[in-house]
């Protein structure tokens, strides 16, 4: 049977769609829907989660993410500039920092700042500070690499033109190079915020009071108190999407905008 290329492509497409449908059907048939309705989709019992999931969970996730991002952005910019510095010591410090914090799980950083630092220095930090620092320090490492790439993507002639007008190096960076670099890194930076939003859930390793719960911890708390099985966690997961999907759309918008114009 001699098929033309177009027929072969058509058959292949039908086969792929068939496999997909069969897989979904098998999954549906294999699922124990009775138990699922009780312990995962038990939406009848989650009423008590509202409105606190907004007022506490969502609010705290947003606050922790924002604080982590502010620290991450400032630290990341500093590290990126150090990495591009002509002074070797700065480059070594920045490289060491970035490799270290990108190389270890963020969870360990939370534990280090939540338990290690208080032990070492006898200080007792407020949870918000711990989250801000741990999340910020991890984010700094990732954001530094993003910003470094952005800074290097600004043509060398821009710095030369600025310096030729009598601007000192720092002024040329602040007024000319960094604003352009930020426009270049806006899409990847938005993706960093998405990652941070999810990483903020790692705070669960710390001892939290109810008013400090963020979405994940809030959901886990609901598991033990509501008797709806895992349903509260499913709801918490949906709330993450409420944050991350708009961010993702925003990143795509930045991307298409910078593709359209260099400005």
């Amino acid at each position, binding site marked *: 049977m001699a098929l033309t290329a177009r027929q072969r492509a058509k058959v292949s497409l039908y086969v792929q769609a068939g496999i997909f449908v069969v897989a979904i059907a098998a999954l549906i048939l294999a699922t124990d829907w009775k138990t699922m309705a009780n312990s995962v989709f038990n939406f009848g019992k989650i009423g008590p989660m509202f409105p606190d999931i907004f007022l506490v969970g969502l609010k705290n996730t947003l606050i922790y993410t924002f604080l982590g991002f502010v620290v991450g952005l400032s630290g990341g910019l500093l590290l990126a500039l150090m990495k591009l510095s002509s002074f070797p010591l700065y480059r070594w410090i920045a490289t060491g920092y970035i490799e270290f914090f990108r190389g270890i799980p963020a969870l360990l950083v939370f534990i280090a700042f939540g338990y290690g630092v208080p032990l070492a220095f006898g200080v007792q930090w407020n949870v918000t500070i711990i989250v801000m620092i741990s999340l910020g320090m991890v984010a700094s490492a990732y954001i530094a690499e993003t910003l470094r790439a952005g800074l290097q993507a600004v*043509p060398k*002639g*821009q710095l*030369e*033109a*600025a*310096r*030729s*007008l*009598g*601007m*000192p190096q720092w*002024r040329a960076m602040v*007024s*000319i190079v960094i*604003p*352009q670099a930020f*426009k270049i890194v806006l899409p990847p930076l938005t993706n960093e915020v998405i990652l941070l939003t999810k990483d903020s859930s790692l705070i669960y390793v710390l001892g939290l009071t109810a008013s400090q719960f963020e979405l994940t911890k809030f959901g886990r708390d609901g598991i033990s108190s509501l008797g709806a099985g895992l349903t509260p966690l499913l709801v918490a997961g949906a709330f993450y999407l409420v944050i991350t999907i708009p961010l993702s759309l925003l990143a795509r918008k930045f991307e298409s905008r910078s593709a359209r*114009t*260099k*400005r």
Partner: protein
Amino acid sequence: MNDVVNGPRGGAAKVHAAGVAIRDLRKSYGSNEVLKGISLEVKPGEVVCLIGPSGSGKSTLLRCVNLLEQPNQGSIQVGGFEATHPDVDIDKMRRKVGMVFQQFNLFPHLDAKRNCSIAQTKVLKRSQAEADKVSLHNLERVGLGHLADRFPDQLSGGQQQRVAIARALSMDPELMLFDEPTSALDPETVGDVLSVMRNLAKEGMTMLVVTHEMGFAREVADRVVFMDGGVVVEEGVAEQVISAPTQPRTQEFLRRVLDPTHIDIQE
């Protein structure tokens, strides 16, 4: 060409002028010596064109004058500044020296007016209102007052280069450096840029220009310097160097530039 309205600055034009004195300048990249002992003088108010084949070191020489390249040896004096002195205040010196690049290097995130005003406010500490006034004046000087709010990507190459000239002029420089200002332009926009430069020369600006535009050099330059292989081969009055060069290398270069269709079979 209509929009190139020019003329000396209204009324009493104050002529700033700083000369350049380069002595025995040497510059190497690794083992490759690009400038092999250049001495050159530009007197205040003088227009000097640097010509020569690509790779002859003329752009490097120009970039040494405002220290975008660090020379290895020799001395450069710009106005009252000893540019090659280790303690020279580079930023202060560069305020007096306008630079125009082959690729314009306008700031793409700023409109034409802000391109001209940003260094005025940040470096010269002028008020925004005063800086805007100076910027507009200089944009009008290059015939682009009506496009002050355009961004660089909304301007043609020739317009961008004229904004770049206005940007440099807005710092009230005493010397202007041009690094092949028309080489990246579409042929039909070259004339506008050259006419702006011609007017600038008439107003008494000291200019050092790297160019391939022989017509411009002959007409506008007081002196022409021909460089090849990192040395000055010949220099003199523009008309003489271009029309009656004495050195064989200059003759050969000019024959090729002035008659691009000429093919030298012996080569």
